């Protein structure tokens, strides 16, 4: 039966929760109630967004082994996913009591605190995790999220670049950098980042939606003025355009100058409105 567990674990690592769950469904009666089975089932259910089922699996497992750290971890994630942060905190602290130096658990707690908008404490926990294991990807990922939630987009972007330099496989890094590139008017680069995230987590609907949205911005010409407006220095283009209109009018072609001016205004207004209309 360890073969089945091994297989399920490998599917989970590949982001294929549904297949992992299928493997686990075929376990015989002697192993289907083992803690290991509950842990893997819990992670798979969380991967599919079925947080209530995951919480139930974790609780069934904890009924047998009340101190299993990984089951507490699953329970914490499942409760947090349902917005029950007090319960999630209780579970994660119970796990941390046994493994106070576990970086994954510390970062999970930091994320729970971020959900509750306690960003300062989350920051402290991530620092603690960084001291314990400077090589780990988790606290770097948490730091990116934290900077984003604080509204510091440029810092978040540079932190994601740092993260990707150390851990090129980090899906979180690719995704957050992609979101930043999208906001900076570089949908082409963002499309590739999102494609990377979709390749690693094919079941995550949110990633697929984001990838589609980025592709639309590249392909649909109605998006292009917005893309241009988001780029650095777009205001220079506007002033240059206004200057050109004035110049054309001053040289005698007044009608042409006015038409160019109106065109410029229409394009800029469209660039502003387009996200609301097209999305």
């Amino acid at each position, binding site marked *: 039966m360890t073969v089945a567990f091994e297989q399920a674990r490998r599917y989970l690592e590949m982001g294929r929760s549904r297949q992992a769950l299928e493997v686990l469904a075929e376990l015989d009666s002697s192993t289907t109630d083992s803690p290991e089975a509950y842990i893997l089932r819990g992670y798979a259910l969380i991967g599919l967004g079925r947080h209530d089922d995951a919480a139930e699996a974790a609780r069934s497992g904890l009924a047998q082994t009340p101190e299993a750290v990984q089951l507490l971890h699953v329970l914490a994630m499942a409760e947090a996913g349902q917005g029950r942060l*007090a319960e999630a905190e209780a579970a994660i602290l119970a796990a941390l009591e046994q493994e106070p130096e576990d970086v994954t658990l510390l970062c999970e707690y930091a994320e729970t*605190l971020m959900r509750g908008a306690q*960003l300062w404490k989350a920051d*402290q926990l991530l620092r603690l995790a960084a001291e314990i294991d400077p090589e780990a990807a988790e606290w770097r990922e948490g730091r990116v999220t934290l900077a984003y939630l604080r509204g510091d987009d440029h810092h978040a972007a540079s932190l994601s670049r740092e993260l990707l330099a150390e851990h090129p496989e980090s899906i979180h890094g690719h995704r957050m950098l992609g979101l930043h590139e999208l906001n900076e008017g570089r949908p082409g680069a963002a499309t590739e980042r999102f494609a990377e995230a979709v390749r690693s987590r094919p079941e995550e609907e949110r990633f697929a*939606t984001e990838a589609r949205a980025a592709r639309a911005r590249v392909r649909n010409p109605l998006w292009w003025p917005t893309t241009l407006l988001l780029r650095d220095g777009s205001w220079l283009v506007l002033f240059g355009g206004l200057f050109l209109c004035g110049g054309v009018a001053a040289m005698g072609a007044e009608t042409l100058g006015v038409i160019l001016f109106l065109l410029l205004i229409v394009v800029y207004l469209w660039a502003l409105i387009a996200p609301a209309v097209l999305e």
Partner: protein
Amino acid sequence: MRGISLAVDRDRLLEPTLANYRDPRGAELPWSFNRLAYPAFFGGPLAFGVLGALNARRLGLPKREAYQVVGWGLLFEGLLIAAVVAGYFVGFAFLTFGYAAHWCSRGVLETPDRVHHYFGDGEDSYADLADAAVLATIAARLFEIVLIAGFIK
């Protein structure tokens, strides 16, 4: 010394602080903060102030924060009306006053908005802003015109 202070910090960090957490969001979904830039741009500071304050309540923020957003709206509306009444040429720049109020409200609304969106259901985590934005834009601009006309007379 460092080791000792760190140990104290660790213990304190692992004390529960979410025990009294209740989902702060109201019955209605909030509007997207980025999208509120539209009524701010077209409807002016007043339209943004009203919608932003309502949104602060929808995000579950205390009343104080909502008043702060209204305050930014009133401040920039006052500046705009004062500039026009005093006879300064405002031109297209009148569109930027609402945007300024939006920008100044980032400190209050941005993080709660991002927490809500990031951990929520993607685009489904926001309410539709279109009707409220159009209504607020028309009402605020009409009010503005009436007020300015009254002052100039």
